[in-house]
Structure formats: structure tokens, C-alpha cells
């Protein structure tokens, strides 16, 4: 009886101690994980996720307040990287429907006010005062900041057109 009680107590104590040490030893500072998550995000501070910049989004992710699919410009690859980092399974189906977009300037409406290219977080819009602005497709994340800043509604988002090199087969059974 005594032997049983003693051995169980010792065993419990030893295992508890082990767990305690492991928790200390492998503890990840919350700040670290936030920083790591932020490093995975595009960093364009576009705010499409609804959080204040990528740091805010990383904090929300770490707190479990946001899904890994929160970043529209990041797309699937970022969602997957985030899911891996957080050790959760990503439900990518939500992303499947969002088509990547990019900004275009309608030349007949543009007055060359430069507001959009000041708003652009990736310097994707070029132009000068009183000149029509143009968008570099490769640098545009489709964050829509420019759309909101344009006084004449000359900037709009259009889906990135498929080309022969970017076209891919659809998923079978999801026709």
C-alpha cells in the first residue's frame, strides 16, 4: 500500500517536473511568434485584412483572432506558410474564390493629382504631377488603397487576366 502510494507520488512528481521543465525550455515568447508571422506577411501594410498593418495582422493571428487566410494579396502561398507556422490546417477553400486583382488607371479620368501613387504601399503607380499615372502590374498587390484615394474615380481594380503561361487546369469535379 505504502509502496504503491509512494511510487505513484514519485512518478507523478517526476513527470510533473519534467513537464514543467519542458514548458520552460521550449517556451516561445509571444513576441517572437508575432515577429515570425509578420515576416511571412507581404509587409505592404495595405490593411486589406482589416487590421492596422501587417504587425497588427500578425498579432491577431498569434492571438487566434484571425484566420490564416486573412491576407488577400498573399494568396495561397502565404496562407499555407502561416498555417504551417501556427501548426493549424488551413481551409484554403475560402481563398479559391478570390481572384487576384490589380489596379488600372482610366486615362480619360486621370487628372494627374499624384494622390494614388502617394497612397500606394509598393510604389506600383508611376507618374508625375499633371500627368497620367500608370500601374506596374508586377508590383501591384491589388490592395485598393489607390482606389480610395482617387478623387475622380479613375482608378479601378480588374482581375489579373490569365495568360498562356499562368493558365492552369481547374480542379477535377469542381467545374
Amino acid at each position: 500500500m505504502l509502496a504503491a502510494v509512494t511510487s505513484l507520488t514519485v512518478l507523478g512528481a517526476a513527470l510533473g517536473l519534467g513537464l514543467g521543465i519542458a514548458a520552460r525550455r521550449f517556451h516561445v515568447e509571444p513576441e517572437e511568434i508575432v515577429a515570425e508571422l509578420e515576416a511571412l506577411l507581404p509587409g505592404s501594410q495595405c490593411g486589406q485584412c482589416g487590421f492596422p498593418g501587417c504587425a497588427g495582422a500578425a498579432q491577431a493571428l498569434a492571438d487566434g483572432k484571425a484566420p490564416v487566410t486573412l491576407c488577400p494579396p498573399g494568396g495561397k502561398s502565404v496562407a499555407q506558410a502561416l498555417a504551417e507556422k501556427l501548426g493549424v490546417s488551413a481551409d484554403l477553400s475560402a481563398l479559391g474564390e478570390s481572384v487576384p486583382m490589380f489596379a488600372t488607371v482610366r486615362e480619360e479620368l486621370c487628372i494627374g493629382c499624384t494622390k494614388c501613387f502617394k497612397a500606394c504601399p509598393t510604389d506600383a503607380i508611376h507618374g508625375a504631377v499633371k500627368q497620367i499615372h500608370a500601374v506596374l502590374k508586377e508590383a501591384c498587390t491589388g490592395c485598393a488603397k489607390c482606389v480610395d484615394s482617387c478623387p475622380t474615380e479613375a482608378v479601378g481594380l480588374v482581375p489579373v487576366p490569365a495568360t498562356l503561361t499562368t493558365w492552369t487546369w481547374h480542379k477535377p469535379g469542381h467545374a
Partner: protein
Amino acid sequence: MSTLPHPNHAPHAHSGVKVSRIMATVMLALTPATLFGFTLFGWPSILLWLVTVGACLVLEVACLRLAGRGGPKTLWDGSALLAGWLLAMTLPPFAPWWIGVLGAVATIVVAKHAYGGLGQNPFNPAMVGRVALLISFPLPMTTWVQPAPLFAAGSPSLIDSLHIIFSGTAVPDALTSATLLGHVKTEATRGVDALHAVMSLGADGSGLGWHAGSLGETGSLLVLAGGLFLLARRIITWHIPTSLLAGLALPAAIGHAVAPELYLSAGAHLTAGAAMLGAFFIATDLVTSPATSAGRLIFGFGCGLLTWVIRTFAGFPEGLAFAVLLMNAGVPLIDRYTRPRIYGHGQPAKAG
């Protein structure tokens, strides 16, 4: 022509082999042995077969409905019919109707649809059905009868048979008998050694089938013929039957050579019980066997070896069902470790 939103991917041709055709071929291969069993055991066996298969079909429809995947096409892939057929092949031919029905429940509902239906089940449905019955109802599942051919004197008439199957009339004592494996097991508990036990049963070469047993057990030679037909039609590959029979025959031969009074001969093992049915029709079940050739060899050998071990050392006279289920559990692991070498991987480029 207009632009297609979702073009058809290649290949634009198909071999024409479909699941329903595979199932139909397997059933065709089972037919001779089944008909032989029917003539051997008469009306009761026919009625029990009908009850079992019918129950499987009804339950399949019910499960598909429940799962919202109805449609006659899924039913007529034939998988339920085949599972029921295989189950019926392993039952004592005079067993009461509820044995067939409960076996069908275990086979279709528990072993197949609880896991998600065709292709998802890790365990062989017919064997789950048989094992569930054997454990739950040992008496009716081990009450065997002597062959009583249709229309022969002393064989039960259709009316008698209806009574035997549906209203629990006891099988006439004059008809009961034991299977070879069962007899040897019983005699061993009385201290009679295997050699004398075999002789006292008076079993001629049991492959010819004139002895007690299930439908699949008595027509071993016809089952073998059906199996060879499946091999020829390339429905199954040689790996599992060969390795299973080897896994059973090798230890049996060694044991018999060392101590013939304790261990049955390899020939007896191969022809008795469900060895042939198991080797060609049960263990080769596509869904629950490994996908690679090497895996199939391991799987088959394991099934054979375990069958011999269970037959020889365990409490049950026949162990194939248990052996197959045990090996089923190992299939994902076997598949994991027998992945074939992919072309161009792990080999020096220049060798020829």
C-alpha cells in the same frame, strides 16, 4: 465552336474496364463453386444465400440513401452483392435466416458504410461479417451438416428447408457433421492426435468437396478454378494467392515433417477450410489489400502464416478470417514501406 469554360483533360480514351465489370467477373468466377455448394447442401443453402445477399442489397440501398449518395448506379457497381455473396460462402449452409441478416448488417453497415462506403473501408467487409457472427453466435456458426444433395433421399425438401432457415427447426442430428479442421480441433482436446483424427473423419481428398463445410469450403477445387480465371482476366495478380498459400503451406509442411501427430499436412491445410476462397477471393479484395506488388507479397504471406498459427494453436478451428482482418490493419503500413522506386530516383544514371 465556342470557348469551353472547363476543357476536358486527356486522355480522351478509356480502357472500358469499370468497377461493375470487375465485380461481375469476380461473381462469375464464384458461380461454379456456389452452384456446386447448392447441389451439395440443397434448399437450405440456397435460401440462406438468398437471404444474405438480399439483406446486403437492401442495407446498401438504405445506407446510400442515408448518406445522400443514392442513385441506382452506385448500387449496381455490384460491390454489395459481391460482399454478401462472399459472406454467404463462409456460412454454415443450414444456419438460420437471422445469421444471414445480422452478418449482412456487420458487413454492409458496420464494415463498409460506417467507414464511408466503397473504397474507404480498411477491413474486408465479408470477413468482418463472418467474424462478428462467429464471436457472437458460436453455436449456429459451427453447426455443420453432411452433404445432402438436392433431391437425394434424406435431404430436406423445400418446405423442410424453409422451416430450418426461417423458424429455427433444429437440423436433424443425422445430418450434422464436422469440418475437417473443426474435427481435428475437437479430437485434439480429447487427446486424439491429428493423424487419427483425419482418418476417423474418413475424409477422402477434401478437395473433391464431399464433406461438411461452408459453400466456399467444399468446392475448393472449383474455387481454385475460379481464382485462376480471375488471374487470367487480370482482375487479381498472382502475388497474394501465391504468397498466401505459401505462407500457409510452408509452416504446415515443416510442422508436419517434424511432428505429424500434432500438425496437419500442408495438403490438408491448403484444401481444407477457406484457404482457396481466402487466397483468391478474400485476401485479394482490392480495397483492403496493398497497392504495390511487394506489399501484396508481404500481405499474402502474413495472411497465410497467421491462418496456420490460428488454426494450429488458437481456440478456433479456422483462422483465415482473423488472419485477413489482422493483416488488413497493417495495410497502410505495408503500403508506406513498399513504395516502389520511382524512375530516375536513387540509381546511378549510367549503368548500361
